[in-house]
């Protein structure tokens, strides 16, 4: 370690990526415009379910400036349809063609693609394409989709039930039957969508001479996209390069492969010209993956003292029209039943999950995946039980938390929790909130006729998942490893290359902190390269709160390898035994003799200066590539505490205070950890109070603008108080735990519980999110308020 240099891991280091982003010098997809580039636009289906009888593009092709039009049939001749295969028996594999083939399954599905000299001309051309549709009955929701009389969206599946899965432990039926108290509820977590501020887009260039394809894409997972394009386009992997330098937010929305990426590659390969597609906001709301959308029937059985005896749940997710690659339609509902038992000792459990196809945009990963609904449910049940038993909501949690002596604890769904800080996080959250004072304040507000409430939510999530478990159940690709290449140049500066990608997480800074510490250089001497499959060792990308754990672990391994070689070279230069050389104050010195030392630069120069500067037999060069597989992954936990007020006149919910106590193990950069929590909580508050994707009975999207899909502005988000418990993970290199998603996992439940607490005098429970003023109006009116 760079003793003497300020230790970087753990420090609030300002971000390395900021200067270029602050000055308008980012490198987003739309900032690129190679010579001879064409602009693409997609014609999208106005119908939710229809057969395509005929497409006539002649008028579009006749428009000056139009280079080509592609339809589903054209694409089918040059690219395979995407099939998100699953190894799980009860998950149906269905085809997702890049452009609709034969029929459309949701409003907004891409039907045809134009490439033209400008985006304006491309959109003119789109309007001139004539499509004859034969409308089919719309499968509008999960209940009707499961009706035997319902039309089936995918003939090959023979049913709309694409996913069914069950986790069970013990005799839950007997346990619940014998429970002193059973609380049950039908929970509804409505459809949401991530809304990255940068819409999705991509730019494909095909070099006809070499046969090489370069795709710039707003992708979180350049490696995953490269791998599947190899198969779909029948091209060797080394001729495909996927670049995602700057990406304007991801949140899971950009973790999947999208039809437009494939179609744009096909168009570029066909025309031998660069083709760029930049989606607009309407396309984003219509055709980027949606999220959560679940109905969860759950029952919790408890003893009189509030300890849990059993949990039963039936989860049904509306997975939309297609199963997305590579996560499959199983990702949301199966994650929900995986995490429903929460941080609690749940001796008996049965969680059943079903995923049902309907005529909506595909369901995909969004920050938290399955866990925002799961935590909403279990934390909602805990509060209901506490109210019935006359226990404080904190107390019932303390009585049920997995205790220190229980770790490692195997959850009823099979996940193993390593040592975590469930109890400590809640204790600390109570202190941070000054729980008693907050309750006193609430009592005073109540006495004055105000609706003020306090809500708690504790959760545990699995992060940094290694090769033992797929990130999504049964998914077709392995996501358990990442690699780092650390390379010194002869002047002693470091380039560190990673297969993960950064789209706001600040990995150019945190990974540089780790590398700099490992090899003993200042952070200014480390440049992190990511998001370019040609530059990086094999990797997939950034999702599932994995990048700091996996890429950070790989950075430690590669850093160690490089450092060992540096010690050997230093020993040679200092005429000392390498075992006596140590790294101190940024110099490699003979132990106990700080004057006998060489600089990093001297070592690096020697490494590239030929045999006479190196120990006999040592290979020249100074770089290492190492892979890291954390095998299982690691737990990450937090407690959120919210204090809200429901305005009695407008029924608007105002968040008065928001406290988070999180434990992401050893922190690399607290500035960035806090920022991730803030952003996650804001998305969770949006999900709980404002945001909702709404379709009508005909499958038409009613929330197709940002006026209708309400993303929180600064006015709806409070100042948050973030505190940390640092329990280094016992199972990851560096002790890191993933934390990119946590804010969004805890916030919906904390807000829902706070609103329910505010309305407890009216005996109102919050079982549906978002809890909008309209829903509160119905609830309060029903309660006679």
């Amino acid at each position, binding site marked *: 370690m760079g003793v003497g240099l300020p230790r970087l891991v753990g420090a609030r280091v*300002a*971000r390395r*990526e*900021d*200067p*270029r*982003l*602050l*000055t*308008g*010098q*980012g490198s*987003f997809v*739309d*900032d690129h415009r190679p010579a001879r580039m064409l602009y693409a636009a997609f014609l999208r289906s106005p119908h939710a379910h229809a057969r395509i009888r005929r497409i006539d593009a002649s008028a579009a092709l006749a428009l*000056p*400036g139009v280079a080509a039009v592609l339809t589903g049939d054209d694409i089918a001749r040059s690219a395979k349809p995407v099939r998100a295969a699953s190894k799980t028996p009860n998950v149906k594999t269905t085809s997702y063609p890049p452009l609709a083939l034969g029929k459309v399954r949701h409003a907004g599905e891409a039907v045809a693609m134009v490439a033209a000299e400008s*985006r*304006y*001309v491309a959109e003119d051309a789109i309007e001139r394409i004539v499509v004859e549709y034969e409308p089919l009955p719309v499968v509008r929701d999960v209940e009707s989709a499961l009706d035997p009389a319902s039309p089936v969206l995918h003939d090959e599946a023979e049913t709309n039930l694409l996913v069914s899965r069950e986790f069970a432990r013990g005799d839950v039926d007997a346990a619940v039957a014998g429970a002193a108290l059973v609380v049950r509820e039908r929970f509804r977590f409505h459809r949401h969508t*991530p*809304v*990255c*501020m*940068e*819409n999705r887009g991509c730019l494909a260039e095909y070099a006809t001479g070499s046969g090489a394809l370069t795709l710039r894409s707003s992708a979180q997972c350049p490696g995953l996209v490269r791998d599947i394009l190899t198969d779909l386009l029948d091209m060797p992997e080394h001729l495909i390069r996927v670049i995602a330098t*700057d*990406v*304007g*937010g*991801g*949140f899971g929305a950009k973790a999947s492969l999208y039809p437009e990426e494939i179609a744009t590659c096909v168009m570029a390969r066909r025309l031998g010209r660069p083709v760029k597609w*930049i989606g*607009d*906001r309407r396309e984003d709301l219509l055709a980027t993956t949606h999220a959560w959308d679940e109905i969860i029937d759950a029952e919790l059985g408890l003893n009189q003292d509030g300890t849990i005896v059993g949990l039963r749940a039936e989860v049904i997710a509306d997975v939309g029209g297609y199963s997305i690659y590579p996560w499959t339609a199983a990702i949301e509902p199966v994650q929900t039943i995986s995490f429903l038992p929460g941080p609690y000792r749940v001796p008996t459990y049965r969680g059943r999950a079903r995923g049902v196809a309907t005529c909506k945009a595909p369901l995909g990963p969004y920050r938290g995946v399955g866990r925002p609904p799961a935590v909403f449910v279990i934390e909602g049940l805990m509060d209901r039980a506490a109210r019935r038993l006359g226990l404080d909501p904190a107390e019932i949690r303390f009585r049920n938390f997995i205790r220190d002596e229980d770790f490692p604890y195997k959850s009823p769904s099979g996940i193993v929790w390593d040592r975590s800080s469930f109890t400590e996080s809640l204790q600390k959250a109570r202190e941070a909130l000054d729980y008693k004072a907050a309750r006193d304040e609430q009592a005073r507000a109540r006495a004055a006729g105000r609706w003020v409430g306090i809500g708690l939510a504790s959760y545990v999530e699995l992060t940094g998942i290694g090769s033992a478990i797929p990130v999504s159940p049964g998914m077709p690709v392995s996501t358990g490893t990442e690699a780092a290449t650390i390379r010194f140049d002869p002047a002693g500066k470091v380039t560190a290359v990673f297969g993960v990608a950064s*789209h*706001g*997480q600040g990995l150019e800074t945190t990974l540089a902190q780790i590398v700099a510490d490992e090899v003993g250089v200042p952070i200014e001497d480390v440049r992190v390269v990511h998001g370019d499959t040609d530059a990086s060792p094999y990797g997939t990308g950034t999702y599932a709160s994995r990048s700091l754990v996996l890429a950070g672990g790989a950075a430690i391994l590669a850093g160690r390898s490089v450092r060992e070689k540096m010690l050997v070279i230093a020993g040679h230069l200092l005429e000392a035994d390498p075992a006596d050389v140590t790294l101190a104050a940024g110099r490699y010195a003979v132990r106990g003799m700080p004057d006998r030392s060489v600089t990093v630069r001297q070592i690096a120069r020697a490494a590239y200066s030929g045999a006479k500067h190196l120990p006999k037999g040592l290979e020249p060069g100074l770089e290492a590539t190492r892979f890291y597989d954390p095998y299982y992954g690691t737990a990450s936990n937090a407690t959120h505490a919210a204090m809200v007020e429901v305005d009695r006149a407008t029924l608007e919910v105002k968040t008065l205070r928001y406290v988070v106590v999180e434990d992401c193990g050893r922190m690399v950069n607290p*500035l*960035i950890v*806090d*920022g991730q*929590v*803030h*952003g*996650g*909580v*804001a*998305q969770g508050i949006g999900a709980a109070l404002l945001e909702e994707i709404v379709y009508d009975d005909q499958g038409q999207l009613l929330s197709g*603008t*940002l*006026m209708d899909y309400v*993303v929180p*502005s*600064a*006015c709806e*988000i409070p*100042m*948050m108080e973030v505190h940390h418990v640092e329990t280094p993970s016992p199972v990851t290199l560096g002790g890191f735990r993933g934390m990119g998603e946590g*804010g969004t996992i805890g916030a919906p439940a904390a807000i829902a519980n706070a609103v329910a607490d505010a309305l407890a005098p009216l005996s109102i429970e919050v079982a549906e999110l978002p809890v909008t003023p309209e829903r509160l109006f119905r609830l309060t009116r029903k309660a006679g308020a």
Partner: protein
Amino acid sequence: MADMMTVRLKVNGVEHEGRCEPRKLLVDFIREDLGLTGTHVGCEHGICGACTILFNGEAARSCIMLAVQAEGAELATVEGLMRDGKLHPLQEAFREHHGLQCGFCTPGMLMTALDFLRTNPTPSEREIREGISAVLCRCTGYQGIVNAVRAAAPVLAAGR
């Protein structure tokens, strides 16, 4: 294709002249014709504010204006903030207070905050939140942005 029109304007103190269709959006003209890609397109319906620039000194959304409407105007974009290789104090504050993550809304957020601090040099937290509510950020939960604007306010006021 409609007749092309000439647009003459000043951006960040530099005179530009371009020819475009009358229907061309100002943001597309700035990005494509002038090559200033720092100004971003987020929604094209005037809600998200990513495209915000200063138009004759006032914050304006360049995605719901036509380029031809900017004939004779003076614009400022994010590219004009840095001086002599040094970040503007507002940019410095955003870096110090972690006021950006993915950086996509940042140019619009900076231009909006600049205009806001010009009209309200000593704002309260509530006023800052209202002032920047014209720009949506999905990454930061606004906390770093609010802190950055609050920290930059006295620095900018002193520089006037």
